[in-house]
């Protein structure tokens, strides 16, 4: 395993704001704190080359976990092994082997061209000028940075900046790439492009990718395995396929008709019914898809039909609400 975490716990103390002037004065003398348990007894392991989505609602503990794994934060309890190293005892050695992109934080110098930041990062990672030059040329080609590499970072679009950020995190050819919300604020086209680049990178170099994102598309298109975390602990760990097709075993059927919908089958609920169109939801635990389609075609004159799995957002929302496969089936 390239990453192995056992029984990880991390809490933060947050000051409780007292009300009124007297409360504020009292809190100056004796402040009250409340404990926030950001990560609770978390265990997970990741094999080499995995594309892992690590998802959860805001405040679930995703970023804290990444920061514990990368050695930024100290754990209260538990053990972390990344590439056989302890991130807190071997922070410098580990940082030569991992790359990190925090969507909200930049490692590029705002007033300088990205090429200068790359050169500086090359020095930070103890690379020779020739090595840095060769690696920048490779990344320039992969991420198509040619047109804007020499422009000051402040003049780049968000999409261009994120491409430069990811390239910067790969300058030292890391074995694991941690991406924390890399597509935050990007438009659909740029997101798709960045996803393709990450996928290509994983396929060509075998880099392990640990991704947190709120974007269902990122997760669905990129990752083979999903870990869902809520209130600092794992609530789901399985394959993307399993999550999509087994966890919530339902399909959405959009159908365009020449008349009113005529369908009454157990396990099929009508979500929307308009004069010439309808949206249905089939629960595959109760209804057979073949039978649903045959009945639909037999009873109706159909112009167009589209069958899709439950959108990823909804799958995640269901897990957040505490619904598991078993509960969903009941």
């Amino acid at each position, binding site marked *: 395993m390239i990453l192995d975490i056992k029984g990880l716990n991390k809490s*933060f103390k947050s*000051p409780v704001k007292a009300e009124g002037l007297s409360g504020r004065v009292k809190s100056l003398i004796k402040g009250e704190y409340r404990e926030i348990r950001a990560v609770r007894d978390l265990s997970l392991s990741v094999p080499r080359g995995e594309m892992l989505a690590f998802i959860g609602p805001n405040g679930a503990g995703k*970023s*804290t976990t990444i*920061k514990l794994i*990368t*050695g*930024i*934060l*100290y754990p209260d309890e538990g053990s972390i092994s990344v590439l056989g190293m302890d991130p807190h005892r071997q*922070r*410098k*050695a580990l*940082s*030569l082997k*991992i790359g*990190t992109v*925090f969507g*909200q*934080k*930049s*490692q*590029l*110098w*705002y*007033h*300088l061209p990205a090429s*200068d930041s790359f*050169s*500086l990062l090359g*020095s*930070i*990672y*103890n690379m020779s000028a020739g090595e840095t030059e060769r690696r920048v040329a490779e990344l320039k080609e992969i991420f198509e940075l040619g047109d804007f590499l020499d422009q*000051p*970072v402040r003049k780049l679009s968000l999409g261009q900046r994120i491409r430069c950020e990811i390239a910067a995190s790969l300058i030292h050819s890391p074995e694991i790439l941690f991406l924390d919300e890399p597509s935050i604020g990007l438009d659909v086209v740029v997101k798709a492009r960045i996803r393709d680049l990450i996928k290509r990178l994983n396929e060509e170099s075998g880099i392990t990718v640990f991704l947190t994102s709120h974007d269902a598309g990122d997760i669905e298109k990129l990752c083979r395995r999903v870990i869902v975390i809520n209130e600092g602990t794992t609530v789901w760990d399985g394959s993307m396929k399993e999550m999509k097709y087994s966890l919530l075993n339902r399909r959405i059927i959009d159908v365009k008709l020449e008349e009113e919908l005529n369908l009454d089958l157990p396990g099929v609920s009508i979500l929307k019914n308009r004069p010439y169109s309808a949206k249905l939801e089939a629960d595959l635990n109760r209804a057979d898809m073949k039978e649903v389609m045959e009945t639909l075609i037999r009873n109706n004159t159909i112009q167009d039909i589209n069958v899709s799995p439950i959108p990823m957002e909804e799958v995640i929302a269901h897990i957040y609400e505490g619904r598991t496969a078993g509960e969903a089936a009941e």
Partner: protein
Amino acid sequence: MRGLIGKYIRFNLAAAMEYRVSFVIQVLGMALNNSAFIFFWLLLFDKVGDINGYGFTEVMLLWSLAAAGFGFNEVFLGNGRYLSRIIYQGELDVYLLQPVPLIPNILCSRMNVSGWGDLAYGIILFLLSQELTPLWIFLFAVSCVLAALLFSSINLFYHSLTFYMGNGENLASAAYNMVLTFATYPGTIFKGASTWIMHTLLPAALVIWIPTELILHFSLSRALFLLAGDGILVATAYLLFKGGLRRYASGNRMGTRL
């Protein structure tokens, strides 16, 4: 690390050059601001002769060392004064993820342009107002570098309190400025408890007074005393910062590197 520091200097200068007019105004403005004090001291010594053994030339030595040491710190170790902000805004993450010694990496990664004005002013004032013997020039150069190291240690010490007590930015900024201000007055005017404070909590004595005395009247025992004091200050700041790192809470605030 040496190559990296050289690159930081080059790139920070290049970033400053993106705004050339602002660079020139800040450098000249700082040099002009410092020069105004020469007239104040000239007028004062014209009236009082000397202050506890310090005449105009000795005070100019204090000034040149304080300005050059402070300027050196601002130019080459300029990120120290922003350390509280870096801690409470969670910006330490970027530095913690890099495979180089943490404290030098943080301190060297930023240059405060106005520091060039202080540095140039301090050196020019020394060249114009002091005896230019090889020993004096050597002691002045060493003292400037040590003063910069101590200014950075003061920043490191006080800003590290942010790990323990929330935002310590104002306290740290006040301490840093007080040390600089006290350093430009003859140490001999301070008596009793204030002298102790100037050797410990606000170590203007270690930063400027004792090095000035050493340039004026060199003594090996005093030099060793100074180096021991410097060592204690640097080690205390380092330990406070290292201890604080365990309490670092990071954060998700948006941030860029300037």
